[in-house]
């Protein structure tokens, strides 16, 4: 019996995803578990695997196309089943994705699932088209408010505020809007289409910096004891513990000690977290992603270290699952390895704070009235003032500093 394969909800609450590549062609025999396609969400590339064996009868969407979640993307036939059955199946489904003439009969609800080249002409004003291109908003998913459903400027403005990344990327938008996918040569510069990840970063951080009232607290941590302990632990160990692993553990310990800071702001209520889930910023070729070490307050340093290494590797390969980078209590962003002395980071809502970690540097310090050379790491905490007040943030930062400066406490 032929079955329709549908776009899965690869990320929670996502309405669309981009089918980036088909790994099989029509007519290919596939086994259960075979990877059929790669699907790109805002943050990751996920494999789409066959749930049963069969023959790929028909691919209903093209590679690179953005598809609504739940819309049919391919037909899987049983061995020996005729291709003719495909039409009946599609007809029964009402999707009519292959025949553009039938698309409107579906009420337009699945119109985005139809190959865009053959879809009904998009009605949008020239200004709306240009603004959409400039702001990276796809027109295909928008409901026009102008005469006959024409998309006009106000619709783009509403979309810019409401759902910046929900619609298609510029590369998958219909040809008249952005021209051929890929690089567009304009004057003395080259325009590289945004990736979904780039768009998400832009949207989320713009939202955060313009809507979350940030304030910043800095503290200098003396690193001599931590560095000595690290050398001791790493001597002869197969897996080396990094300074960053210590920091993640210290953040978790401090959150356990000051649970009032383990919160997140939502419009209706304060979210109090039960465990310390620490998001660790990882830089990849395509952008920034923050995988999460869950319950770091209940994990050992070596567990944390192994977990971060695994998350970072898979983040760089674009293989994180959405649940591995969504949520979290607090983030750590460390640029110390680049020699950055200090910086302030942007909060990643709904988290209420992010710790920006600078390099451990030799500096003049005063111990008991005596000037000497010490190793100091400067950390800056960015705090959402809606959720955490200054005194509480200071209390948390002191607990963090104490953990770093008395590192044995982190091992218990």
């Amino acid at each position, binding site marked *: 019996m032929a079955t329709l394969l549908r776009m899965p909800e690869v990320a929670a609450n996502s309405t669309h995803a981009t089918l980036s590549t088909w790994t099989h062609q029509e007519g290919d025999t596939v086994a259960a578990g075979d990877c059929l396609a790669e699907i790109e969400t805002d943050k990751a590339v996920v494999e789409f695997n066959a749930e049963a064996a069969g023959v790929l009868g028909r691919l209903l969407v093209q590679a690179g196309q953005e598809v609504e979640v739940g819309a049919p993307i391919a037909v899987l036939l049983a061995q020996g089943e005729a291709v003719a059955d495909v039409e009946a199946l599609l007809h029964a489904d009402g999707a009519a994705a292959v025949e553009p003439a039938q698309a409107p009969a579906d009420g337009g609800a699945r119109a985005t699932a139809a190959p865009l080249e053959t879809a009904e002409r998009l009605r949008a*004003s020239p*200004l709306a088209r240009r603004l959409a291109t400039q702001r990276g908003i796809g027109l295909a998913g928008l409901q026009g408010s102008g005469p006959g459903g024409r998309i006009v400027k106000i619709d783009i403005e509403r979309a810019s505020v409401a759902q910046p990344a929900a619609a298609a990327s510029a590369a998958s938008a219909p040809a008249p809007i952005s021209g051929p996918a890929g690089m567009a040569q304009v004057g003395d510069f080259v325009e590289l289409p945004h990736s979904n990840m780039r768009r998400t970063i832009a949207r989320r951080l713009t939202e955060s910096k313009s809507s979350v009232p940030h304030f910043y607290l800095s503290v200098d941590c003396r690193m001599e004891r931590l560095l000595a302990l690290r050398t001791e632990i790493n001597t002869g160990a197969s897996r080396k513990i990094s300074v960053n692993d210590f920091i993640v553990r210290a953040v978790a310990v401090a959150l356990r000690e000051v649970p009032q800071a383990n919160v997140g702001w939502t419009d209706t209520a304060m979210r109090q977290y039960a465990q310390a889930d620490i998001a660790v910023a990882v830089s990849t070729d395509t952008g920034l992603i923050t995988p999460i070490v869950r319950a770091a307050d209940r994990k050992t340093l070596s567990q944390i270290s192994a977990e971060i290494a695994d998350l970072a590797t898979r983040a760089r390969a674009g293989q994180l699952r959405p649940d591995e980078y969504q949520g979290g209590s607090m983030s750590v962003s460390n640029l110390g390895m680049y020699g950055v002395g200090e910086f302030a980071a942007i909060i990643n809502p709904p988290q209420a704070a992010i710790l920006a970690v600078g390099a451990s540097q030799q500096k003049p310090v005063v111990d008991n009235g005596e000037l000497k050379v010490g190793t100091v790491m400067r950390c800056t905490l960015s705090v959402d003032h809606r959720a955490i007040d200054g005194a509480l943030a200071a209390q948390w930062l002191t607990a963090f500093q104490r953990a770093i400066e008395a590192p044995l406490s982190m091992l218990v």
Partner: protein
Amino acid sequence: MAQETFDLLVIGGGPGGYVAAIRAAQLGMKTALVEKAQLGGVCLNWGCIPTKALLRSADVLRLVQGAAQFGVMVQPPQADLGAIVARSRTVAAQLNKGVTHLMKKNGVHVFTGHARLQGAGAVAVTAADGKSQDLRAKHIVLATGARARQLPQLPGDGETVWTYREALTPPALPRRLLIVGAGAIGIEFASFYRALGADVTVVEMAPRILPVEDEEVSAQVASSLQREGMTIHTGMGVANAQRTAHGWDVSLQPQDAAKAALQVQADVVLVAAGIVGNVEELGLEGTRVQVEKTHIVTDAMCRTAEPGVYAIGDVAGPPWLAHKASHEGVLCVEQIAGLHPHALDPRRVPACTYSHPQVASVGLTEAQAKAAGHKVKVGKFPFGANGKAIAMGATTGFAKVVFDEASGELLGAHMVGEEVTEMIQGFAIAQSLETTEAELMATIVPHPTMSESMHEAVLAAYGRALHI
């Protein structure tokens, strides 16, 4: 008397009210319209239309006076003020009949009398003879309009102190006319009376005439009017006025204390210093309807704070323009009918002044666009460089456009010159269709026309003007 119940009842039969009533009838509503005076309102009877008739007479006079420059030799013409005014009244009367016909054709029930809200969904209409009638309606649209603002220093007497109303039906041409207020109304009458030979002085509180227009527009019109012999005092207000044997002795006080005060003698003073909304005696006291500075407060969809009560047009605040009122009437009614019209975008309401030269504009001025944070592209093209304008002897003025540099959105267009009021719709359509500079540049404009200057102004904004 039995109560009649309507889906929609409009109070006020001006260009806002009667258009709202027609649209409601088109959408299948049982519609009533209450008007206490004349259908068509001020616009048709005492405003837009009769003034255009007067100004047309001034144009004809001006054209005949200048006939020699076109090689046509005529005797010096005589203006017959009585005949000019009579023609203006005939035009208004003809259109008033037209509105009556439109109401009938659309099945709108017209009630003559003064309407007053009587609690939720109830309206009492009192006729001139004192008889009262109770009506009920699910939705009530207030479209009562506005009237001229009075100045306490110059109490209106209808003879030596006029409002637009008296200025439309002058018994004789005033020798010296002082016009207080240089908005569209003041400037149009100034233009008319100057053309007929009155000694016209205009005083304006703002630093320039037509203060809502683009600065370059104000400057161009001021210089044209002064060339025709008009006296203009800007940045001056009326401090006090003394009644004299011949008329008025008016003291003008400068806004800037460093400047000297002035005395102006006039036989007649025309007060054109803004308008006030007709919000009295409407029964608003018993409702949640809010009134601020003589205007009814509404949201973008013309809804007042009282459910089921709406306000459109002049009574709902500026811009005080008939076409704004009509547009609000349509969108208000469509929304009531469950359609989804867009709110009125003030940047897309064109404004016209029928002086000589005419002024027409839509959208933001250059200064407003910059103040709003736009990085702008501005283009300007003078009619003096336009072939048709030269052939017509109409080289005064220019077309100017303001684009948002980033998006190419046409933020505003501003024109001064002959018949520019007929041309501005080109830019209004461009805005409504949301074209960018690209579509405007790609449009083929017929040659020879004065509207080529609009195209050239767009090209000029992007450094591509062809004929300058």
